[in-house]
């Protein structure tokens, strides 16, 4: 599979950049994290790293080219030979998809249903470093917001098809039949009469049972659980190195970054037991085991198979369990026992290059973690002789928490512990044969 590498937006205002230097040539093998080019903006020169292993296909932009617009394809990346037949090597297995957009029951627009010429960026390699300082806000056009307001739709529940994931008016309009079919829409479906406000051509299909369940649960969650969100940025360079080392050693199952995240979440929940809870009718239930539900997107809806006793699983074992659940989910072979219960949910949308997602809590859990893309970003590092700016592979983790069960202090402790666990993966017990450090002191 060929992937496209795009000119990244390195600053909020950047519209174009100069391809100052290529560090690779067609045919070169690259590893995730390897610098492949230097991009010059009006302010600075930044390095562009590959986020995936592979082989450089074609360089589409000459070295020294000025004024290369953001999102222009600058190179193609082919899958590396050794991994071309191994899906597990993909650091972002497509099965791990979950996001509030999907979770809320509104699927991505069917391809071909759009009347406008749009190129979806989803197939692009997520190498776009996110700009700092931007407020965490769902990108949506004012027109989309107005439509959503008028129609009573939660804009955050939609997935944008516009540039850089912007929710545009068409996305709101596309969402309308899906929403209306959930309740009282049978009549509409039966008569085939489009709602009056829909002027554009559309198609309509009934939701699957899974889809209906998901729609109902998500709507209930958003309507009845007092959500609050906390976000933390984590440097995953160490985790990526560890993964590379472990994968290079060969014998165990191929690890994905998500495996490391789930593993760290399990540790953090174990260390922050007040997060591993559930609110139930004026009572608080604290679980003595960590069962992590991992969201997996299927065409007909979302499933959340549960990794039971996750805190007890060494990393290799956790990874193979994860793969097993994924495969069975995609093969529609999950048993009820596989997705029942759980104490906490992880939802990873990083493979789309999404920096940050704001999950809806998967009830009755007290917390759901949204995992963003791991991308190089400029970071300020305080040192002895002042603050300097460096580039690190960063990932944003966002916790949606039920404020009836947990508060900001607990969330903060949990996220801090999670950050420590991911940034110092060698300190994770059982993270592999090469982990030599003793346990860190109890957080």
């Amino acid at each position, binding site marked *: 599979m060929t992937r496209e590498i795009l000119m990244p937006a390195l*600053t*909020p*205002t950047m*519209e174009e950049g100069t391809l100052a230097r290529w560090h690779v040539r067609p045919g070169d093998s690259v590893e995730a994290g390897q610098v492949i080019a230097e991009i010059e903006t009006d*302010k600075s020169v930044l390095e562009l790293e590959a986020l995936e292993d592979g082989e450089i296909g074609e360089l589409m932009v000459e070295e020294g080219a000025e004024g290369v617009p953001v999102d222009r394809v600058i190179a193609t990346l082919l899958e590396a030979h050794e991994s071309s037949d191994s899906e597990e090597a993909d650091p972002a297995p497509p099965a791990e998809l979950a996001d509030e957009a999907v979770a809320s029951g509104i699927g991505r627009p069917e391809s071909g249903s759009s009347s406008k010429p749009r190129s979806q960026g989803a197939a692009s390699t997520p190498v776009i470093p996110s700009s700092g*300082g*931007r*407020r965490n*806000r769902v*990108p*949506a*056009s*004012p027109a989309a917001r107005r439509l959503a307001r008028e129609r009573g739709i939660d804009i955050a529940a939609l997935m944008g098809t516009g540039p*850089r994931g*912007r929710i545009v008016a068409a996305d709101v309009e596309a969402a309308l039949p899906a929403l209306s079919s959930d309740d009282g829409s049978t009549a509409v479906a039966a008569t085939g009469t489009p709602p009056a406000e829909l002027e554009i051509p559309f198609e309509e299909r009934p939701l699957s049972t899974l889809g209906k369940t998901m729609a109902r649960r998500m709507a209930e969650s958003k309507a009845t659980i007092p959500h609050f969100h906390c976000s933390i940025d984590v440097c995953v360079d160490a985790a990526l190195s560890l993964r590379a080392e472990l994968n290079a050693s060969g014998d165990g199952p191929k690890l994905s970054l998500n495996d490391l995240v789930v593993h760290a979440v399990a540790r953090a929940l174990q260390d922050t037991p007040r997060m591993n809870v559930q609110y139930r009718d004026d009572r608080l239930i604290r679980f003595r085991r960590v069962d992590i539900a991992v969201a997996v997107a299927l065409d007909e809806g979302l499933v959340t198979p549960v990794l039971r006793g996750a805190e007890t699983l060494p990393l290799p074992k956790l990874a193979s369990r994860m793969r097993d659940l994924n495969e069975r989910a995609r093969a529609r072979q999950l048993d009820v026992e596989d997705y029942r219960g759980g104490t906490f949910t992880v939802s990873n949308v990083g493979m789309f290059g999404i920096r940050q997602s704001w999950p809806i809590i998967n009830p009755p859990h007290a917390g759901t973690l949204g995992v963003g893309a791991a991308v190089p970003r400029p970071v300020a590092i305080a040192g002895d002789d002042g603050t300097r700016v460096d580039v690190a592979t960063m990932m944003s983790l966002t916790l949606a928490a039920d404020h009836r069960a947990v508060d900001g202090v607990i969330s903060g402790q949990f996220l801090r512990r999670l950050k420590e666990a991911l940034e110092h993966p060698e300190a994770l017990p059982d993270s592999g044969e090469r982990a030599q450090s003793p346990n860190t002191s109890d957080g």
Partner: protein
Amino acid sequence: MARMTFAAAMVDAVVARMHDDPTMTLIGSAYLLGPTAEHPELNAVRERYADRIIDEPPIAESAVAGLAIGSAMSGCRALAHFGLAAFAVEAWSQFIHEAGVAHHQSGGQITVPAVFVMMHGIMPIEHSQHSRSPYAMLANCPGIQIVLASTPADIKGLMTTALRSDNPTVVMNHPLLMAMEGEVPDGDFSIPFGQAEVRRAGDDVTIVATSHKVHVALEAAERLAADGVSAEVVDPRTIVPLDRAAILASVCKTGRVVVVDDSPRTCGFGAEIGALVAESAFDDLKAAVVRLSPPDTPIPRGTVAQTPFRTTPEKVVGAVRSVLW
């Protein structure tokens, strides 16, 4: 640090440069401080470098501009004070067709280290023909840097930079700033062009303000804070070059923008900021950009008639409320 007025801080920068640069000419030095204030060092400079001082040139704005630009092209820096911006419009052919184009059109052979200083804004007791803030017009033409300082420290730092720059620079000051006091760094102090200053940090709305209106915005922000509205006040300090990144960063944070300045609305500073934000901070905008400018009519004489033309903290608060739905 020393406490001094805006006018004194500006003159400090000019005086220092007159000492440092034996080729610099100072034209219109009589207007630098305004009619009442005294500055002993300026007087000393006027005596000591009499051959490089033209205290009160003839009322001939275009030729005064030519004098400064031609001298600058020759390698001798010049500062010319034009009194009021409303009169300096007479010199704009020289500004944009000579100073603004020289470097580009000569393929880089010529530089124009000239500074043009003038007062802008409503002149309280003056005739309409004396009241104008026409900086956006010059900004529409390439090649001229434009400084709009708001504090004593800034005018010193920005004037120092202007007097070291190889490019022509227009410095427009508001009369109500001249006597304003503040802490000013001692000695050599410069502020790079194109670096906005966040005068007050906030989360709910960005107020982009220039020159004297920075203080109006700050007062408005204070009142808004009492009502629980957190306003960020961004002062671009130079509008060419314009620190777009700082403005956009603030807008990305707050999602709401009010622009407060003295130029007329149509094709004014607010239009540029409005267009910039509508294109480049689109996804972060929660409300339309509001431009708070004097009305698009000439400015009448007299303080009462000028009331609608004065941007007050109340008006800024009102504008902010209108974007906080």
